[in-house]
């Protein structure tokens, strides 16, 4: 692994925490593979294929090249000059909003799509909430000549009409899911059901660090390019080399996991920001949903609760199992911000820096704005904030709120 990382020109980041999970995909007491018997061989096949591919310099080379010439990596690290001055801190923005398709989701999807093709699969399926992961999956499917079906809660297809149309433009089929709460969690269930029925030709491209083993680990590895790049960039941007704080929004937690992975072995404080209406770390209890054990929003009987956030991408009752573990052991801290704080943050960042970010990413921005200058984020602190996506998809929501 060491030679490989060197071979593809990545900074070597060894970390005692964010490593390979223990047996059966365990991060502490979380993770695992809680899927029906019918899906066990499919999960095992994905795990075996990923292990092999990730150790294969040719696969790593292919993926690196795609990330560079297709997705536009490395993404810049932009100093937020004006906000930094206003807030009295040094704020650096890791610009995933500038990646192809407008968010970090493309990093994971290109990795998984290449893996699917290597496994001989001809069709990708995916769940999506805001539609960003669906768009990224449809994009990779178009590029690699694969069929693509995206499952999306019926309520989300209405809220995110534009992204539904984008997916269709890219040649994907979009299926509205009408069961349960008709949102992201139901789309996850449906994708799993459809995978059972067509495991032979179909690869399930999971959109975040969730799902049965090996997905939480694999998706984190595909997203760690964010953190690895950021680590190289801070080495030259910051005199200390490493920031005091690393901040990212958390839905399932993939952009945060990828970012954290680059700094897990440093003394940087890792902060994950959840939506107040979907805060599995703050309000959830240990539980099992969508094939893994983690902290989950649920009622006293174990029925999964609906999350409520202005950003469809954070409207998810669970959180990646590795985050639950990082929280338990105190390596990362998870906080929440409200919809109103998020709306303010979008506007303030846009006016200060000329960057219109996604509502999801604005959660991280809102926390920095709220805490800068306090004990939580002292004056003069250096902060790397992952701006996970751009705000184009949210214009309809913002227009509605402005009225």
């Amino acid at each position: 692994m060491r030679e490989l990382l060197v071979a593809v020109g990545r900074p070597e980041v060894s970390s005692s925490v964010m490593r390979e999970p223990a047996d059966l995909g365990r991060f502490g007491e979380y993770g695992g593979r809680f899927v029906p018997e019918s899906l066990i061989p499919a999960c095992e096949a994905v795990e075996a294929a990923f292990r092999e591919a990730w150790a294969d310099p040719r696969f790593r080379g292919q993926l690196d090249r795609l990330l560079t010439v297709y997705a536009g990596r490395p993404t810049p690290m932009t100093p937020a000059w004006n906000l930094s001055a206003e807030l009295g801190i040094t704020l650096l923005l890791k610009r995933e909003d500038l990646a192809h398709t407008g968010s970090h989701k493309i990093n994971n999807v290109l990795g998984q799509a290449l893996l699917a093709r290597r496994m001989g699969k001809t069709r990708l399926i995916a769940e999506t909430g805001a539609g960003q992961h669906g768009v990224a999956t449809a994009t990779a499917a178009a590029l690699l000549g694969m069929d693509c079906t995206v499952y999306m809660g019926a309520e989300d297809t209405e809220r995110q009409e534009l992204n539904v149309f984008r997916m269709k433009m890219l040649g994907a089929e979009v299926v509205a899911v009408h069961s349960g709460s008709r949102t992201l969690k139901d789309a996850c269930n449906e994708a799993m059901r459809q995978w059972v029925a067509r495991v032979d030709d179909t690869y399930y491209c999971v959109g975040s660090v969730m799902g049965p083993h090996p997905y939480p680990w694999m998706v984190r590895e595909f997203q760690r390019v964010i953190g690895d790049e950021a680590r190289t960039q801070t080495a030259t941007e910051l005199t200390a080399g490493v920031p005091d704080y690393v901040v990212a929004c958390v839905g399932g937690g993939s952009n945060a996991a990828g970012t954290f992975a680059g700094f897990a072995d440093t003394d940087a404080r890792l902060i994950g920001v959840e939506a107040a209406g979907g805060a599995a770390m703050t309000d959830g209890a240990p539980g099992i949903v969508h094939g893994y054990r983690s902290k989950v929003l649920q009622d006293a009987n174990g029925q999964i609760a609906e999350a409520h956030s202005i950003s469809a991408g954070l409207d998810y009752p669970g959180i990646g199992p590795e985050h639950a573990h990082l929280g338990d052991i105190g390596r990362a801290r998870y906080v929440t911000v409200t919809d109103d704080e998020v709306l303010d943050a979008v506007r303030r960042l846009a006016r200060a820096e000329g960057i219109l970010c996604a509502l999801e990413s604005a959660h991280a921005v809102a926390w920095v704005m709220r805490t800068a200058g306090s004990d939580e984020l002292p004056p003069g602190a250096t902060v790397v904030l992952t701006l996970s996506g751009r705000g184009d998809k949210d214009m309809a929501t913002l227009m509605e709120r402005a009225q």
Partner: protein
Amino acid sequence: MSRLETTLRAARDAGGKLLVPYVTGGITADWTDHLLAYQEAGADAIEVGLPFSDPMLDGVTIQQASDRALEQRVTPDRILSDLAAVRDRVRVPLVAMTYANLVVRLGYTEFCRRLADAGVSGLIVPDVPLDELGGLDDAAAAAGVDLVLLVAPSTTPERLDDICARSRGFIYAVSVMGTTGERADLAATATALAASVTARTDRPVLIGFGVSTAAHAVAAAATADGVVVASALMRRVLDGATPEEVAVDLAAIRAGLDTVATGTSTGSTAGRVEQHGYARAARA
């Protein structure tokens, strides 16, 4: 071995084919009437669904039944107290079917104890596969509840061996790579799977998922010891059929199975008798 397995073995060893219908707990106010009607129609055991908000392995019918029950604020405790209330009149064993989160929420030991207190003698949790049992099998056994494990057409031979060894009550053979739900035909994968399971164990083997008609049940029972019937019955319930009306459908499946039961033993059964030295009286 608890009451579930003892009862099913006895019925099978007497030459019968096993019929296990399903009902979603709390689907209607008087839902326990379905248990009594199923019993009258010849059920050997009854599967009772404890509805979960996110039923990953269920097709549209059971999803709708679960949603409808949950809309009426049904809880596992309510369902179990309803069951306890009809305990004296329901003679056949009951098997609870639910998803992992309802079980871990209470804790394995407490959950199984509550099942046993309500007179339930079996448990099926489809999203807790063999590798993730984590003591659920021991907790169930300690409470006198048979933990029924599932096998699927994709299950490897080594896993089949392990599952057959650790499942209690019966082996649930999932007929098809897919979710629950009615199908036009019994999947071709069903009988092949049942055959490889019966060759490995003397526990009862039931085929479920998509068994919708008497003809399907008869075809399934050629290799397996019986069937689980869920979506076909629950669709009728969702459409407003009374317990008696639904029981008419079940009785037709019972009649079909009885034609097989009185027949002579099949090759695979003979093989099994030899292998395990089991006397299967009425079939021999």
